[in-house]
């Protein structure tokens, strides 16, 4: 509750300030207030969620490319039996780096980044909550990834798999600093993820535009909300376990030492308590993107809004109760394992309901548009479902005891992760590319890259089911010629080459379209949600005036739209904070402008993290620079200074629009 009457925003039925001249002047002023300037310092001080979201996406795809190159190396080595292209040490480092990069540096950051970019726009906010913290999270993600790859090139890359089980990764058998590098990368990326999740939860709960009650939020926003809560509950588990691993290796604690009361299985429990929700963290935002694109293509809202929300929520909750299915082969008691079988089978049901609702949506579409984004989403029904069904097979303890840690599992998780997250992500990127850049991606190149990916992906990963059933274990740098596995492996490697080409075509499409693509208007797809109510790309302040909604599909029911909100200042950065349930206006809240402190704090944190894996005192001495940067960050500023920030460089409106 705001005590100050002056701070309350006013909803005005008819207001003279809504005429076009006033609006233009207001937008020019807002442009100046929210602009970020040019030059190196401005780029490093960026706090605009759209710029940071784009950076996250570009950086994540950079890591995706690196991990893809590593996969290409692996498939080259495995194309022939007893191949000598890669020795065991290098291969082990490469498969570890591939998994670690994909899971921690690509899959989670990129889906959170789509949320970072889209959520404030979809909820009608001018900014994301805590923009400087968001900038800090980007730098931590970038520095963590650079740290990992620099270590990899120095031959200190981790080599114990992306889940790094002790005792292999422990102090006795994990020689050198490789496992510590892995464990500290986790800390970098988990700090980054937790921060982004916090920003998203606060934005979604407290910064929705008036009229957007919880039951009018887009399904993608629901997905990001649930994902963010999963991040908040899951990531501490792995931060804890990776810290315990570093402590075991550096200062001789005994968390995973059974001779002194610890247990190697403790690692597995702690890791997989994070690890299973992690894959739902990767999966759920893609479900949100599916809903948005399918609704737009079908020109109707997704059928069964409440069921969709409840399904995603149920998936998230149950997802925290299935982790032991990664440990069925460790010799745990049978009764306990059966519980996790039941939970792992049960978790299929909410996703199945979502699939049926989507099918119903398409069935009752009003002239379904087969666009490239739609193709990517439609492939979900064919690709992800195979993965989901092999997941049901793996949920069964006896069958899992046979195919655990074989290529059957490799096939399964690539089907669910790529089919369930990457395909929708590429479709979503195609869908929102015009909003982010103002240009449409080329349709023909889009079709080519989709079909190549579909064919290449199935060619690569389907044979792996058969390889697993024929006894080929995971994480092997070679296999004997006498086993008869070479034909399927060669097929998989050929498919990998096709995937490579398809992604190259997608990249070419992006590069070409940035310069020569068709200019996109505000709403090239005819979609319903608020991000399409502003220009492409959006101005720095997102919306002027502040939109209000009376429907879950505001752009399809413009006749219902209430008058916009006026009263937010245009000479300082302000956002409208609303109540949680029905988004009634609460108060105006000042936002910080660009700032270098997030970057400096991230540098200080990175120094402390890297130092502390080599020397225990690094934790203590390295905390001092962090402390100093936080003091600088939180140093109170007066209102006037923010105005200064807003007009740095004294730009005119026309300059800033380019």
């Amino acid at each position, binding site marked *: 509750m705001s005590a100050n009457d002056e701070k309350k925003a006013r909803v005005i039925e008819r207001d003279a300030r809504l005429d076009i001249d006033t609006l233009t002047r207001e937008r020019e002023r807002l442009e100046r207030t929210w602009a970020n300037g040019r030059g190196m310092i401005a780029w490093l001080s960026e706090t605009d969620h759209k710029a940071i979201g784009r*950076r996250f996406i570009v950086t994540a795809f950079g890591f995706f490319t690196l991990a893809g190159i590593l996969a290409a190396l692996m498939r080259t080595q495995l194309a022939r039996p007893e191949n000598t292209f890669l020795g065991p040490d290098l291969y082990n480092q490469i498969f570890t780096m591939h998994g670690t990069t994909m899971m921690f540096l690509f899959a989670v950051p990129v889906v959170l980044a789509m949320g970072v970019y889209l959520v404030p726009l979809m909820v009608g906010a001018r900014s994301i909550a805590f923009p400087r913290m968001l900038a800090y999270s980007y730098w931590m993600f970038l520095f963590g990834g650079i740290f990992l790859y620099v270590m990899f090139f120095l031959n200190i890359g981790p080599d114990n798999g992306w889940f790094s089980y002790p005792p292999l990764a422990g102090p006795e058998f994990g020689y050198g600093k490789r496992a510590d590098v892995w464990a500290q990368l986790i800390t970098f990326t988990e700090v980054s993820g937790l921060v982004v999740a916090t920003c998203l939860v606060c934005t979604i709960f407290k910064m929705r535009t008036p009229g957007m009650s919880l039951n009018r939020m887009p399904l993608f926003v629901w997905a990001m909300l649930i994902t963010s809560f999963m991040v908040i509950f899951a990531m501490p588990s792995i931060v804890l376990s990776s810290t315990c691993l570093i402590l075991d290796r550096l200062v001789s604690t005994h968390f*995973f030492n059974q001779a002194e009361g610890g247990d190697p299985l403790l690692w597995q429990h702690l890791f997989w308590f994070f690890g299973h929700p992690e894959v739902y963290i990767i999966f759920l935002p893609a479900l949100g993107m599916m809903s948005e694109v399918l609704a737009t293509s079908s020109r109707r809202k997704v059928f069964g809004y409440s069921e969709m929300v409840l399904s995603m929520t149920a998936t998230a909750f149950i997802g925290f109760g299935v982790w032991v299915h990664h440990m069925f082969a460790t010799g745990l008691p049978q009764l306990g394992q059966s519980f996790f079988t039941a939970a792992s089978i049960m978790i299929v049901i909410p996703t199945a309901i979502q699939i049926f609702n989507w099918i119903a949506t398409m069935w009752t579409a009003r002239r379904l548009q087969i666009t490239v984004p739609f193709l990517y989403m439609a492939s979900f029904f064919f690709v992800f479902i195979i993965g989901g069904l092999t997941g049901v097979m793996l949920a069964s303890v006896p069958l899992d005891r046979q195919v655990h840690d074989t290529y059957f599992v490799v096939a399964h998780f690539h089907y669910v992760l790529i089919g369930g997250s990457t395909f929708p992500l590429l479709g979503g990127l195609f869908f929102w590319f015009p909003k982010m850049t103002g240009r449409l991606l080329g349709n023909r190149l889009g079709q080519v890259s989709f079909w190549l990916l579909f064919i290449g992906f199935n060619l690569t990963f389907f044979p792996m089911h058969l390889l697993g059933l024929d006894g080929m274990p995971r994480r092997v740098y070679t296999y004997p010629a006498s086993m008869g596995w070479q034909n399927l492996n060669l097929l998989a490697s050929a498919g990998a080459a096709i995937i490579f080409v398809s992604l190259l075509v997608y990249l070419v499409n992006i590069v070409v379209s940035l310069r020569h693509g068709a200019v996109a208007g505000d709403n090239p797809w005819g979609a319903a949600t608020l991000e399409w109510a502003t220009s492409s790309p959006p101005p720095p302040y997102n919306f002027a005036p502040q939109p209000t909604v009376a429907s879950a599909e505001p752009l399809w029911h413009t006749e219902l739209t209430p008058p916009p909100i006026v009263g937010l200042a245009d000479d300082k950065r302000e956002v409208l904070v609303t109540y949680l349930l029905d988004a009634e206006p609460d108060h105006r809240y000042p936002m910080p402008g660009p700032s270098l402190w997030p970057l400096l704090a991230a540098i200080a944190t990175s120094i402390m993290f890297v130092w502390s894996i080599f020397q225990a005192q690094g934790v203590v001495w390295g905390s001092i620079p962090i402390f100093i940067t936080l003091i600088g960050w939180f140093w109170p500023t007066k209102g006037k200074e923010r105005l200064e920030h807003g007009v740095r460089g004294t730009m005119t409106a026309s300059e800033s629009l380019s």
Partner: protein
Amino acid sequence: MRCAAIGRRAVLAVALLGAVAACEREDRRFKELPAAANRETGVRVSSLEPGMAQQQAEVKSPYQENAWGIGEGKRLYSAYNCAACHGVNGGGAIGPPLMDDKWIYGAKPDQIYATISQGRPDGMPSFGGHLPTQQIWQLVAYVQAMSGQVKATTAPGRNDDQMGALPESRQNPQVPIQTGHR
């Protein structure tokens, strides 16, 4: 965009530099060392010399800065039952302790190699010919680690066993004193 390009180039430069100057600590060299590593001739086991001491270049053992080699040395220390005479963590039993600063026959890598290979009076077996050269050098590096002569970032951590002494990485460096036989 320009800054991103600079950043990308910087990372690439570091990566290439790293590939060239790759960390010796993390090398894994499975094959036998070149013959030059077998430097047994001319090893002095006494610090006394007639006249002026001839300067000997400070030699490092081949695995002194290699975490893999030291780790292998630690594994071999228990595999070959050195612990039976020298104690599980080098604390000494019927054989002299290896984690302290007193060295009967010298603490230099060449001298330790000679001790293991040639054997010594009063109970140290002669392992030359029974152990491959590479493994003796790994044991040399581990013996050095036990008294804190190697960098803490290269020395091994604790065993997955009951805790005896501090692990080698937390061992304070013991400045070697050549004591001779008592």
